[in-house]
């Protein structure tokens, strides 16, 4: 492989911050969730890359990735359940509607 690791890390980091941007700006709860998925994916890339390039003797990164994916799924499921429930009560999934509690 003749791609410097920093380039791959550029991709993952960029992805991470793109996800973060989405989380900051998207007003729709589901899209916020998507952004989080992006963030997690960037982390996955990191783990795989580090494991493959730097510490090939063990499979820590790979396993971490697998578990992250699983957790991401569970998180998404619960989040969506909550969103649906919230949608029932708020009649909308716009974040701006969910700010009764403040100060």
């Amino acid at each position, binding site marked *: 492989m003749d791609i410097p690791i920093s380039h791959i890390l550029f991709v993952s980091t960029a992805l*991470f911050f793109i*996800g973060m941007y989405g*989380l900051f700006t998207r007003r729709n*709860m589901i899209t*916020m*969730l998507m952004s*989080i998925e992006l*963030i*997690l994916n*960037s*982390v996955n890339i*990191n*783990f795989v890359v*580090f494991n493959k390039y*730097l*510490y090939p003797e063990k499979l*820590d*990164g790979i*396993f*971490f990735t697998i*578990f*992250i994916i699983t*957790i991401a799924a*569970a*998180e998404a499921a*619960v*989040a969506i*359940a*909550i*969103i649906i*429930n*919230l949608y*029932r*009560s*708020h009649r909308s999934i716009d974040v701006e509607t*969910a*700010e*009764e*509690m*403040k*100060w």
Partner: protein
Amino acid sequence: MNEFLLLMKQELVITLIIFILLFVKLGKEEMKNETLINFVNILLALNLASGFFLQQSGTLFGDMFRTSELFTLEKNLLNLGTLIISLQSYNWLKDHKHAPEFYILLLSTLLGMFFMISSNNLLMFYLALELSTIPLAALANFDLEKRRSSEAAFKMIISSAFSSGLLLFGISMLYGSTGTLSFTELPAHLDGNPLQIFSFILLIAGFGFKISAVPFHLWTADVYEGSPVSVTSYLYVISKGAILFVLVSVLYNAFAPLNESWYNMVFLISVLTMIIGNLFALRQENMKRFLAFSSIAQVGFILIGITGYSPEGSASVIFFVLIYIFSNLAAFGVINLISAETGRENMSDYKGFYQANKGLSWVLAIALFSLGGIPPTAGFFGKFFLLLAGAGRGNYLLITIAALNMVISLYYYLKVIKAMFMDANDNPIERVQAGWSPRLAMIICIGGIIITGLASGAYNYIYTLVK
């Protein structure tokens, strides 16, 4: 094999309870909530009792899991707290549709915390963290009809997902720069280069989010306010306590090489946390929200203890968490009862509270005194020792700030006392009759508040374990 049984006994028991509940749920005939609750309480009590003997220390699963008497103790404390909470939630839970699910989720988070305490590996830590977070988000939504409840749940899941994302990024960077995930190997690889510091800060942020330290605390108040009182008190005491235990051991062991830099970080964070927490708590009207901010301030104090970086430091932190469990749960016991019976949660509702509910007012008052650090309650000892531990590092600026913050915090605790005892109210809360189990919980808490401090046994025991 039986070693495995012994070392993981608490985790196993909890898992067992979870599965029993699962079968109860799936079983044909519905079990009455009352019996269920009492049943679970008994099981928890058994687990608590079992925690105190046959203590061993060792590691399992290729040092993924390690335990020691200290960890067992910490787990017992959490177990105790959970027991108290479940005793208190009786009034709320007895006519809730999803009592078994409540317990399943609650206990799975508790299990997560146990694993988190025992985790010897960033992977385990992360998984346990998520296990102790995600079901809580679901629990936050357990007042299914309340708008605020679901809003709270949403806020919690989103911000926890975000924070765990950052945490993960940090962990990955740490992995990238050290090549290991195990806490035991970590110190050898830490050389404090910028990337490690950065990833460490991300890690701290992850912790900070869970213990709601400034500036990672903003979700706290909203979530605490929205969720059902039992869940709030659980979030408030148990999950916070668990994370604190882990934080101490992680900082003191895994990140010992970086202690110079983390000392400064923790110092800064604790000062911010105390001040911001107090300033916000000053102006709160809703009891839960008010306690949320006060808890943030408390965390600031605990962080002082952590800065001590000494056996006294960790001992005082654990000791304080114990007291914190008692004091807060005593306070929440009353609030829980009142909100379950009358649905009133505002400070102004507590005006003239003393006229009808003498006992409850005294419980709340003692709890608040303990939180404010007034002798002879245990809170006084807790804070005193935390500050002593912090002073051990010779940072008297921190101590002075903390001491003055104690005064501010006293102000808002006294505000509640004032409302209860002094203010007049045209329709005060009428007499509330507490069932046996909330009453038992309160007795335990008050007993704890009074005894833990005056009798030095608890602290000495913890100290010997820490040593």
